[in-house]
């Protein structure tokens, strides 16, 4: 497995580019060997472009890409030794499962015995040992996708495993099982994985690190926990977490945020912020029901309760704005009407113009 280095890699599909048409704005970063990364973001954000630059399907307009210390910028896909899994399973329909898995090794001139052993172990990992002699075309989409993955893993010289929304065509009920299986296959292995998805569940399940993209730019990079706790923008706060982060309008004066009649203390230092409107962000999970008084304790009106099974969402109106609190089912929700809420200071983050205030 290889470390992948991007040096000032940027791409545009435009023949006569200017700054406004970057599909991927120039970026320098390192993908550590053996780590798994998820690229997430809306359609057109540049995530597939990054994947295609790593695989060599796209030649970047500018910059340099290294696998370990070797410059592969001009190396074609076939010579990069990357394993690719696409949205649609790619299998050789005329071959058995075993022949499918063995094919990359046959092409490399491996000896029959070595092939048998290797295919056997990969088949074991993807849980398909009992179907080795079946025709690959007879399998379900989920099993075909596992074979696409297995064919990538079977080579011992793979530099990176690249997956582009591999669960798109999988039945939702099977998605869970397949997600679990892929995760078990890649975890604990020394595989550099780059995974593209627009599904937050998948991203957070697979990846050691998430790269959130928007408009051709890397917006934030971090572990799922970091993105949840400390989103750098409203976009990330909305994208990660369910329901999304609460964003409440507040007025700053003399470094203190005020929402209606309440002064709200935040974890963000607001001393340097001019007197203006900002947003305070807090996750619904951290808004507490509270009776009594104290720092950041406010009076709100509970207008509705949504039952989500193990948790409930309290929809509250607070100083003319909406705020959601998420409480475990073990807590009986209060009657509709006035409730006390506490917004723990450590969990309140300031945002301005869509970005976290630094």
């Amino acid at each position, binding site marked *: 497995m290889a470390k992948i280095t991007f040096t000032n890699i940027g791409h545009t599909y435009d023949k006569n580019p200017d700054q406004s048409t970057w599909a991927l704005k120039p970026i320098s970063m390192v993908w550590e060997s053996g780590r798994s990364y998820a690229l997430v973001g809306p*359609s057109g954000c540049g995530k597939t472009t990054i994947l295609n630059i790593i695989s060599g399907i796209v030649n970047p307009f500018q910059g340099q890409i290294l696998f370990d210390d070797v410059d592969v910028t001009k190396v074609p896909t076939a010579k990069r030794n990357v394993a690719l899994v696409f949205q649609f399973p790619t299998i050789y329909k005329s071959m058995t499962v075993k022949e499918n898995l063995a094919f990359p090794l046959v092409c490399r001139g491996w000896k029959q015995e070595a092939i048998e052993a290797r295919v056997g172990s990969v088949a074991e990992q993807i849980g398909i040992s009992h179907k080795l002699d079946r025709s690959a075309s007879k399998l379900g989409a989920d099993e075909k996708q596992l074979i696409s993955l297995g064919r990538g893993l079977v080579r011992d010289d793979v530099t990176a495993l690249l997956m582009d929304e591999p669960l798109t065509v999988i*039945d*939702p*009920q099977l998605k869970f099982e397949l*997600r*679990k299986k892929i*995760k*078990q296959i890649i*975890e*604990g292995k020394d595989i550099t994985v780059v995974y593209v998805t*627009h*599904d*937050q*569940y998948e991203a*957070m*399940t697979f990846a050691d690190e998430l790269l959130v993209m928007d408009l051709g730019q890397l917006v934030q990079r971090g*572990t*799922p*926990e970091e*993105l*949840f*706790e400390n989103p750098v923008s409203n976009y990330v706060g*909305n*994208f*990660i*977490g*369910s*329901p*999304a982060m609460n964003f409440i309008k507040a007025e700053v004066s003399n470094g203190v945020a005020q929402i209606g009649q309440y002064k709200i203390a935040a974890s963000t230092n607001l001393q340097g912020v001019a007197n203006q409107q900002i947003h305070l962000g807090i*996750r*619904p*999970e951290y808004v507490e029901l509270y009776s009594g008084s104290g720092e950041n304790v406010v009076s709100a009106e509970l207008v509705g309760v*949504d*039952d*989500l*099974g*193990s*948790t409930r969402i309290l929809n509250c109106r607070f100083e003319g704005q909406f705020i959601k609190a*998420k409480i*475990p*089912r*073990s807590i*009986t929700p209060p009657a509709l009407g006035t409730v006390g809420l506490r917004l723990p200071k450590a969990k309140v983050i300031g945002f301005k113009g869509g970005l976290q205030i630094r």
Partner: protein
Amino acid sequence: MNLNLQELSVEHGEEVILKDINYDFQSGKIYILIGRTTSGKTSLMRTIAGLIEPTSGQILLGEERLDKVPIWERGIAMVYQQFINYPHRSVLNNVEFPLLRAGVAKAEAKAQALQILEKVGLSEFKDRKPSQLSGGQQQRVAIARALVRNTRVILLDEPLMNLDYKLREQLREEFRVLFKSTAQSVTIYATTEPSEALFLGDELLVMHEGRIIQSGKPNYVFENPATIDVAQIVNDPPMTILDGEIKDNQVIIGKTMQFPVPSHIKSVASGKYKFGIRASEVTLGLTGSSSEEGNVALSEVSGSETLLYVKLAIGEVVLQLEGIHEYHIGEKVAVTLAPHRIFLFNMDGTLCAAPGN
């Protein structure tokens, strides 16, 4: 107007697709069909719509024998998992189309279509083709087309299934508002997701192997699942079920866990039982006799929660932790079951005692 299903079955030889469905649907309510794939949800909807012919039983809409009416005259709107729209027509045309077909005058059809498009938040896209819209927007077009006809029955077959979870979350909220405007219709909504069922449903019908195995208010069914199957279907992740017994006022789970019988199952006779516990009612830490140490088999993040699958000596247990946390496969953790939150099932799978709210 009520939609009444009487002894409805669809059977092909040995194969049971639907069996003895009896249910009275009232207009103005949202009925949720919940069940796993192939449990019969889609077949039931298709039978109501006329796409599948029942082998026995009848369908009444008010006084009318609906199963005797040809499909095209049943006046039923259906929304599917896939976003089905007319690709060559504009969004506005897509929504007007059923009205024009029904002979509504052009100006009137347009006005009604625009009104519905406003409701589903697509006014500004009315001149686009469906392919120029996102998945969520395409599904809204299909829903607008279903709502515009003001049919007596609206069937929605897992309409959010092919959307990512942010969109599901958003549309789920919009649906609740949208369906308020369908008070004259019977609305039936199929899903596999308990949170959607609890969020949207006025009444819940749990389907399994072609039958309705329990029905009632969503919250009641959630708290009082009649069988282990129901408990698995209405909980996401599915409820953990462990084998054990009750003996000498002790609960014994597996071979290694033993704790005093909690009060809600005090009066139960000694013997072998199955013990159910929800993922959200298993916690981390060694706190007493209902705790055990094990290894993480998998961790998954769903929304704002982390799901941990832990292998214990007593079996595999699922935990749902608030917030997003990092765990690795194989990591050692201690977990505690909450004795007062245990669902007790008889060995045949029927509910024996529930912990209550």
